[in-house]
């Protein structure tokens, strides 16, 4: 059985696993904020279910990260007892929910990236990464169906829904480029046969995004300017507020369990 620890330094693998786990966790928490607030009961349930899947995926990645780190931290310590600068999530994931359209657009842009990423990770030289990716990939394919469907329905909907979707796209677009900014961690993972280079995922992402945006009658922004920093711990002001809420209980009552 091939293990990643034979192929790559633990600190690099740890960092990379945090990127997967933190992005799923932060996005999952954001989506869970809709619970009880969505525009229809079915949407409320759907968003809660998507959030559950994301948090489930985060648990798998973060548990693995904790084992690789070898300092006795598990999924809970990594989720609830790190501060913003230790988080390695995409900036796009931590952007506020905005309206329903903005939430869906954020979801769509990330899922269109996650699906080819997870498909590629199924071929990872590390069996555990491959297994998590195969599991998460099935769920992500399903989530992408839903987010694409709603982006199309709302984009190609009323003038009000169209305007809101276009505005969401314009707002979030500058955060999407970060998904394709590979660095030394990605290079090392790729050289070891553990993960694809992020740049290699851009054609698949672009194809999905352009097809859905066209059907949704939305206009792709021209600028390719990309905010970055989330993957190395430099976040927007929104993450601290999110963590303040997400981590409150564990910080106020250390070790609390149900």
């Amino acid at each position: 059985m091939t293990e990643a620890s034979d192929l790559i330094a633990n600190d690099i693998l740890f960092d990379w696993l945090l990127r997967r786990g933190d992005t799923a966790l932060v996005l999952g928490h954001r989506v869970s904020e809709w619970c009880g607030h969505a525009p229809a009961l079915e949407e409320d349930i759907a968003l809660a279910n998507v959030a559950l899947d994301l948090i489930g995926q985060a648990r798998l990645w973060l548990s693995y990260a904790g084992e690789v780190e070898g300092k006795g931290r598990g999924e809970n310590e990594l989720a609830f007892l790190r501060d913003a600068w230790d988080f390695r999530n995409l900036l796009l994931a931590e952007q506020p929910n905005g309206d329903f359209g903005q939430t869906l657009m954020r979801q769509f842009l990330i899922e269109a990236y996650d699906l080819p990423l997870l498909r590629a990770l199924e071929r990872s030289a590390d069996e555990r990464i491959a297994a998590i990716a195969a599991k998460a990939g099935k769920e992500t394919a399903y989530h992408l169906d839903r987010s694409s469907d709603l982006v199309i329905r709302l984009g190609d909907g009323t003038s009000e829904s169209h305007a809101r979707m276009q505005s969401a796209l314009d707002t979030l677009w500058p955060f999407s480029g970060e998904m394709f900014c590979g660095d030394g961690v990605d290079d090392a993972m790729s050289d070891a046969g553990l993960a694809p280079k992020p740049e290699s995922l851009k054609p698949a992402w672009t194809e999905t995004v352009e097809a859905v945006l066209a059907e949704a009658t939305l206009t792709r922004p021209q600028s390719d300017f990309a905010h970055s920093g989330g993957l190395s711990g430099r976040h927007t002001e929104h993450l601290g507020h999110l963590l303040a809420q997400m981590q409150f209980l564990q910080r106020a009552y250390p070790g609390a369990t149900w």
Partner: protein
Amino acid sequence: MQVATETVWQWLSEVSDPEIPVLSLTDLGVIRDVRWEADTLVVTVTPTYTGCPATAVINLDIETKLRACGIDELRLEQKLSPPWTTDWLSEEGREKLRQYGIAPPVERKSGDKAEAGRISRLTGRAGLVIACPRCGSENTEKISQFGSTPCKAAYRCRSCLEPFDYFKCH
């Protein structure tokens, strides 16, 4: 006490899924392996969905059942790969679902697996035909991609007008 693994499978077939009580854990296909390692019984379980809230309850129910049957040395292992699929639902399980009022999973049409087909499918042009579990009518429509649990979608029958859950293909 070291009993035959067939006996353990039989015991586990008496444990219900916590969310769909007409299904047993063996109907659901989540028990992947039962084996003895020296004096320890090892049961391998695959989660249906990573975020399924029932996973912890399922593990607890397995442990409770086996301890009640006299197994002292017990270990549960989680196995992610290959990922669980609705193909693992037993035939008996599918029929139990239908009688319970939940439409069992329908296989996707051939050629629909390609990701290029995804976008045309989601716009409804190649939608699945889900028969109403109550009246059998195929004149049904999807209300929401997610239903009362992560594994189900909400549908409505246009013939008998009843809403129903569809155990979606995964």
